[in-house]
């Protein structure tokens, strides 16, 4: 049972990649990418969790209590910002792709044939 979070992370990573590979629509590609990325959140937070640990905020609990690792949470915060920005940028590209190619199927986006 204690492997479950890591197993979920592997599942999300590979399933998301499958979605990207199988996608016929670039919007779907982008959304599947965000699933791939979410696997890293699960992994990181799973790594830093301590049994019966409390959230690392000592406004209302004593400092000496058992706290979970705050560092991984900071890494995940950065990760989430990266997710939001990359998705915005990619969707801007997809919108332009539809203007230029008239399609968002990656199979139709082939200006360079060689």
């Amino acid at each position, binding site marked *: 049972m204690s492997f479950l979070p890591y197993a979920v992370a592997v599942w999300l990573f590979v399933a998301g990649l499958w979605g990207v590979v199988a996608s016929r629509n670039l919007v779907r590609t982008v959304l599947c990418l965000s699933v791939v990325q979410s696997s890293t959140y699960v992994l990181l937070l799973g790594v830093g969790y301590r049994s019966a640990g409390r959230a690392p905020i000592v406004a209302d609990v004593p400092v000496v209590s058992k706290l979970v690792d705050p560092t991984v949470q900071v890494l995940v915060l*950065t990760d989430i910002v990266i997710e939001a920005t990359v998705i915005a940028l990619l969707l801007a590209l997809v919108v332009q792709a539809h203007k230029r190619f008239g399609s968002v199927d990656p199979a139709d986006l082939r200006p360079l044939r060689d």
Partner: protein
Amino acid sequence: MSRRARLGLFACAGPALAVVLVLGFRGLPAFGHYHGVYGLVVNGVELSLRHATDMVTALNFDLRAFDTLGEEFILFAAVTGVALLLRELRDESQRGSAADDGAHSFSGASDGLRGASLLLVPLIVALGVYIVLHGALTPGGGFQGGLVLAAGPLAALLAGRYLALKRLAPHAALEVLDALGAAAYALLGLGGLVFASIYVKNFLPLGIPGHLLSGGFMALNSIAVGLEVTGAFLLTWTEFLDQALLIRRRSERS
């Protein structure tokens, strides 16, 4: 490659990758049994040395403030990139005359909806300000609060007339807000260099733990990030909404 070949390749490679990852992950400490020292030291250090009670924010804006610099500039770069990619082209035009307003954007908002949304605006803004300012004390901080702040004007945007409200917050102003927020974060770090001779050194008085202005320059960092995120998300949203609602090719008739 044909679709079939592609899926076939992945059918071999994907499970192989999963096996590789699982083999690696088996070396991880069992869930809940993590014993790294980094977090322990941080939990010990922050309250005593920096008078902050939210360790995550303290890490974000003080210990690992340099990472956050990178993070803020990723956001800034992405927004600049979106502005670059969605710029109006020569073969496009924006339908922006007053006569157009309402005809094509979000039409048909009832007065009730509009009123309710406008009532939401101050509530959301107040919440955003609260989250930004209490970053060092309770969950939240510049990023989360900034996004909530951006949601305030958005409520008005979605309920009312898109164009009329967009005139109040034009792209240029939002770009400036975004840029100033990012610059403020970088310059607060330079403050450390100037006053304490090390970049991102916390150079302000630390205050009393649990009080609003505790944690030295963390509160200011949080505000800078909040401003940047507000500008960044409002800009991104309106850029995309412009594309969806206003910008048309010259040849198109709506």
